[in-house]
């Protein structure tokens, strides 16, 4: 069965290509897929309850989701209908469309995929799987209804169908989850055993939710309005989706669940009341349509209500009648829709007030329409009559107090059905005395033949119905006996059912005869009730939703950033505050401090923070915030988190540097808010601070479970091969998390570069300068006497072109290689000497931190920042040329290599058969050094290191030299006002 679905997927994928190459003929090729499904169903023909074919593939066992398919007799019947009508509809498309129809490829793909989804839907034995297919059909239906995507009405109708059926689908999903969780299984074959579950409020809720899904899909009241709207679809789609297949999904669901839940009172109420109402309302509305297709659409709504009554009744007899009517409806409604399609194709209209003389021009089409309508009306000996006989027999014999009422509704509905069937035939095929025959161009053998084929099938199926009765009874027997005996067949002798059939036909004929007064009355009533219809309610609701959302957006998003942030903050504080207020917790025990030093550091940090808030000068505020950062680092250290303290100190330093670089280009003072706004900010700040303090006081004593890190020390040593648990967590236990973080860092670095350089033209000078530096290095690193070495020649040539001051090796600066490029005023000999002395020491330290980080404080993050700081010193002392010379690679190279190392580490671990990012400990003995252990997560940490170095290099290149290049504000030239006072305003 999964192969059947897969076949349709393959066909759907190939459809656009096939339709482009072969034109509309390719539809015949696509029809192979449903033809195979039909063949498979026929090959498995007599399905016995116990021997239903089952296939099972695990999908997500943790949530109990599996790809389980099972074809019992009900699924088999629907499979047959979907497959056979699918073949006919696809074949019909080959004649219906023109080769140059816009969007034909997409259409063919959607229609074929839809057939596959329906097959999956009816054969799925897992409710979650059923839901997946259910939603796929919804989406495909949306695409198919909206086929004429340029038409606004078509788009609106598609959206309406989507909204209504998705709403029902979501309700259904809720029901599925409740039922599945209660029963402990999502398998339909296990759930739908009668009386397997206790009835209580929860189950009733779940079942009603499931029914909401079914009735929205099958267009029952109050969701009926989407189906007539969906007639905006091309007619083959209407025939397939909105008559034979998709709307049957709801009927299928009701039929599928009836054995388990039909005995619940809520079930019967919903099915009988809504089904009956729908049957009457749909038939009544059908009687006043002028568009043949809309007439059929309302007729379908009516018939769907009829079917829900039958399969929802929950007795063996009603179920047999129900599936018989389901089969009959698929045949006659498919036939009628395709007939209308052919009429539309041949005459260009579907308006029954215009059509005239068709029966002479196309007798085949007239025969098909007549037979289809006769089956719909329930004329003997067609299958529609057989079904209706079974229905009347069932309800005459059912011993329940509601049975007579249901019977009355069904007879009335059937009489109306006869009336609109008559209206259809009369409207489509009559001769009008007052009008010329409609212009007609031949519809072609396919467009006439296929409806005729369906009509004849309905004609033959009636008399031979006793032959296939056993296949249908197989399903019906799952339900309890409702009294009486029902068999399929054309002739059961004179009796009450036949009498009722005759009465139905008579009343129907009377309604046809009295069509003029009825029409007038309907028009009058229709005008008065239109504003209260479900359709109007839907549109009003959607309108209000639209306007409401725009209003809310407009109210909340005034375009003011402080307002937006205040809303977010208030929400956060409000929910947290409410939780605190409700719980009113009191910290179990408190201690003033762990260490007296904490108090002093805390005091200093607090003072710095408050002063930072009061500062008017940017630089002062930045330095004070930096001071709080260092204060926090000390608090981390005192608390017992040396790794954090180290990283915090280093990061704070880089952060300060970044601020200094950027503040060169900003006004030296902050803009000030007015007093009222300041007070508001103060109030919010005080509230937030108080709340967080309260939270911080109670949170530590709220813990109810042991920490997740319990026992981590042992596994860190055994599996991670490291003694620094924090580092092991970063590079092993939660390495995925770290990878994600590296990606964020890379994204930020890329963002910084993009913000500064914006496009390639601004980046080009930087790139060229880097290339120059590399060339120069290549040249000067070569031995001086190696004049014949081509590298040096190339280097010298490029130097000559830019007339750099550092072209002769004899003039090499003493301390920093490229510092001569700076303006002499900006140079500081002292700084150059110090940088020269400590640069390599710092680099060495960073490598040390990297390699020992697994066992003592350090690791890739801290080490990377140390290396970055060393680079920053080179930049500050020697300028941008010096920075390029210090590390002459683009930052992207470092970032990319770093991520590659980290991810590659995970991949390598998988290749050798471990889990992703698992750590391996390698032992080796080296001469002179002795035994060493290499932990593979070291390579991960090297990746982290490279990414962090790349980040800092990117910051220095963009916010440092990039800003210099652009603003003309450079460390190279003297700036009279000083770096913090830049000439900005």
């Amino acid at each position: 069965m999964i192969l059947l679905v897969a076949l349709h997927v393959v066909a759907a994928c190939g459809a656009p290509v096939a339709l482009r190459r072969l034109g509309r003929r390719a539809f015949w090729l696509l029809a192979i897929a449903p033809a195979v499904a039909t063949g498979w169903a026929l090959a498995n023909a007599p399905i016995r309850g116990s021997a239903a074919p089952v296939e099972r593939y695990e999908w997500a066992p943790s949530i109990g989701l599996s790809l389980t398919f099972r074809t019992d007799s009900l699924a088999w019947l629907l499979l047959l209908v979907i497959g056979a009508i699918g073949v006919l509809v696809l074949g019909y498309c080959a004649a219906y469309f023109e080769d140059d129809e816009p969007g034909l490829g997409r259409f063919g793909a959607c229609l074929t995929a839809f057939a596959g989804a329906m097959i999956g839907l009816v054969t799925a034995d897992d409710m979650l799987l059923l839901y997946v297919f259910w939603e796929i059909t919804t989406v495909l239906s949306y695409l198919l209804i909206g086929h004429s995507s340029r038409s606004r009405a078509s788009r609106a109708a598609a959206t309406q169908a989507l909204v209504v059926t998705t709403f029902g689908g979501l309700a259904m999903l809720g029901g599925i989850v409740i039922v599945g969780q209660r029963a402990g299984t999502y398998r339909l074959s296990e759930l739908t055993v009668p009386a397997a579950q206790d009835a209580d409020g929860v189950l009733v809720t779940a079942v009603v939710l499931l029914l909401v899904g079914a009735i929205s899909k099958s267009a029952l009241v109050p969701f009926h309005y989407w189906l007539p709207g969906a007639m905006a679809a091309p007619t083959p789609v209407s025939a397939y989706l909105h008559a034979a297949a998709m709307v049957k999904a709801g009927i299928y669901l009701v039929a599928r669940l009836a054995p388990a839940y039909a005995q619940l009172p809520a079930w019967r109420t919903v099915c009988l009341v809504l089904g009956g109402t729908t049957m009457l309302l749909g038939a009544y509305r059908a009687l006043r349509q002028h568009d043949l297709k809309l007439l059929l659409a309302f007729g379908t709504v009516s018939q769907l209500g009829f079917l829900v009554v039958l399969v929802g009744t929950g007795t063996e007899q009603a179920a047999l009648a129900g599936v018989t009517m389901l089969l009959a409806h698929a045949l006659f409604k498919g036939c009628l829709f395709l007939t209308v399609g052919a009429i539309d194709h041949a005459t260009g209209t579907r308006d029954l007030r215009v059509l005239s003389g068709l029966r002479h021009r196309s007798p085949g089409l007239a025969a098909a329409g007549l037979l289809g309508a006769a089956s719909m009306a329930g004329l003997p000996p067609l299958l529609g009559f057989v079904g209706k006989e079974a229905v009347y027999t069932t309800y005459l014999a059912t011993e329940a107090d509601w049975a007579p009422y249901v019977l009355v509704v069904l007879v009335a509905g059937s009489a109306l059905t006869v009336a609109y069937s008559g209206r259809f035939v009369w409207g489509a095929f009559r001769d009008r005395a007052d009008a010329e025959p409609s212009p007609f161009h031949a519809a072609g053998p396919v467009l006439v033949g296929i409806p005729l084929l369906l009509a004849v099938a309905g004609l033959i199926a009636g008399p031979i119905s006793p032959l296939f009765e056993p296949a249908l009874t197989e399903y019906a027997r799952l339900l309890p006996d409702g009294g009486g005996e029902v068999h399929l067949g054309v002739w059961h002798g004179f009796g009450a059912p036949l009498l009722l059939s005759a009465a139905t036909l008579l009343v129907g004929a009377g309604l046809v005869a009295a069509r003029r007064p009825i029409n007038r009355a309907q028009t009058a009533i229709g005008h008065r009730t239109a504003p209260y219809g479900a359709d109007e309610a839907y549109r009003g609701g959607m309108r209000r939703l639209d306007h409401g959302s725009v209003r809310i957006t407009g109210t909340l998003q005034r375009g003011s950033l402080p307002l937006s942030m205040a809303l977010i903050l208030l929400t956060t504080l409000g929910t947290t505050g409410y939780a605190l207020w409700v719980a009113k917790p009191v910290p179990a025990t408190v201690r003033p401090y762990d260490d007296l030093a904490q108090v002093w550091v805390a005091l200093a940090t607090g003072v710095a923070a408050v002063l930072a808030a009061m500062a008017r000068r940017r630089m002062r505020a930045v330095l004070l915030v930096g001071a709080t950062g260092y204060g926090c680092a000390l608090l981390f250290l005192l608390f017992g988190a040396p790794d954090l303290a180290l990283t915090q100190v280093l990061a704070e330093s880089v952060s300060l540097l970044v601020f200094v670089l950027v503040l060169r280009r900003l006004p030296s003072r902050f803009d000030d808010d007015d007093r009222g706004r300041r007070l508001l900010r103060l109030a919010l700040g005080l509230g937030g601070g108080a709340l967080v303090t309260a939270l911080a006081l109670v949170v530590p004593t709220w813990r109810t479970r042991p920490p997740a890190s319990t026992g981590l020390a042992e596994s860190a040593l055994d599996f991670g091969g490291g003694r620094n648990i924090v580092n092991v967590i970063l590079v092993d236990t939660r390495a995925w998390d770290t990878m994600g973080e590296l990606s964020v860092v890379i994204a930020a670095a890329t963002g910084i570069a993009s913000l500064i350089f914006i496009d390639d033209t601004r980046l080009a000078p930087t790139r060229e300068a880097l290339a120059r530096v590399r060339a120069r290095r290549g040249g000067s690193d070569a031995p001086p006497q190696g004049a014949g070495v081509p590298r040096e020649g190339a280097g010298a040539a490029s130097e000559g072109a830019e007339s750099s001051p550092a072209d002769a090796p004899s003039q090499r600066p003493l301390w920093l290689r490229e510092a001569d490029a700076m303006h002499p005023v900006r140079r500081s000999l002292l700084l150059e000497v110090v940088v020269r002395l400590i640069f390599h020491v710092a680099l060495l330290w960073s490598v040390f931190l990297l390699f020992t980080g697994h066992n003592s404080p350090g690791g890739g993050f801290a080490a990377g920042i140390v290396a970055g700081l060393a680079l920053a010193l080179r930049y500050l002392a020697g300028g941008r040329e010096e920075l390029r010379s210090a590390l002459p690679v683009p930052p992207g190279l470092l970032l990319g290599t770093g991520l590659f190392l980290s991810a590659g580490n995970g991949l390598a671990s998988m290749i050798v058969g471990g889990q992703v990012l698992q750590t391996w400990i390698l032992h080796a003995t080296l001469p002179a050094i002795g035994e060493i252990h290499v932990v593979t997560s070291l390579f991960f940490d090297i990746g982290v290191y490279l990414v962090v170095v790349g980040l800092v290099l990117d910051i220095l290149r963009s916010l440092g030299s990039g800003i210099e290049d652009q603003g003309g504000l450079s460390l190279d030239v003297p700036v009279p006002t000083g770096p913090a006072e830049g000439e900005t305003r």
Partner: protein
Amino acid sequence: MSTNITLALVCGLLVGVGIYLLMARGIVRAFLGVLLMSNGINLLFLLASGNAGRPPLIRGADTGQDGMTDPLPQALVLTAIVITLALTGFVLALAYRAAEAEQTDAITDDTEDARVARAGEADAESEVDVLADPTSDDEPADGDVGAETGPGAGATR
């Protein structure tokens, strides 16, 4: 486990001052608020993880965790610190770009949002109805659903 009052107060103070700064209009000033808040929240992580103790480093073969601080929140905070650093670079690049364009890093109200707000009020008064009623008898031929769809209809146009 007991609560360290000193640390709790520092957390609250840093977050409170952070909020005060965050609500300011300039990018740099608001971002200083973010930095203060993130410092405060990082402290809260540590505070919530338990009492102060010895660092989470294994000495010798002793893998007992008694008296050791919880390493997990520390790993989380460590990544947070580096992310904040990356964010600092990014936001300051933004501030630089804003100052280049507007001569100030102050954020003015977004005119586009204000336009949406006005449009919402205007829209509520006009009734734009997208779905034509396919069942109405007034329009000839119920053409709104049919006319565009059938290929026959297309051929006659």
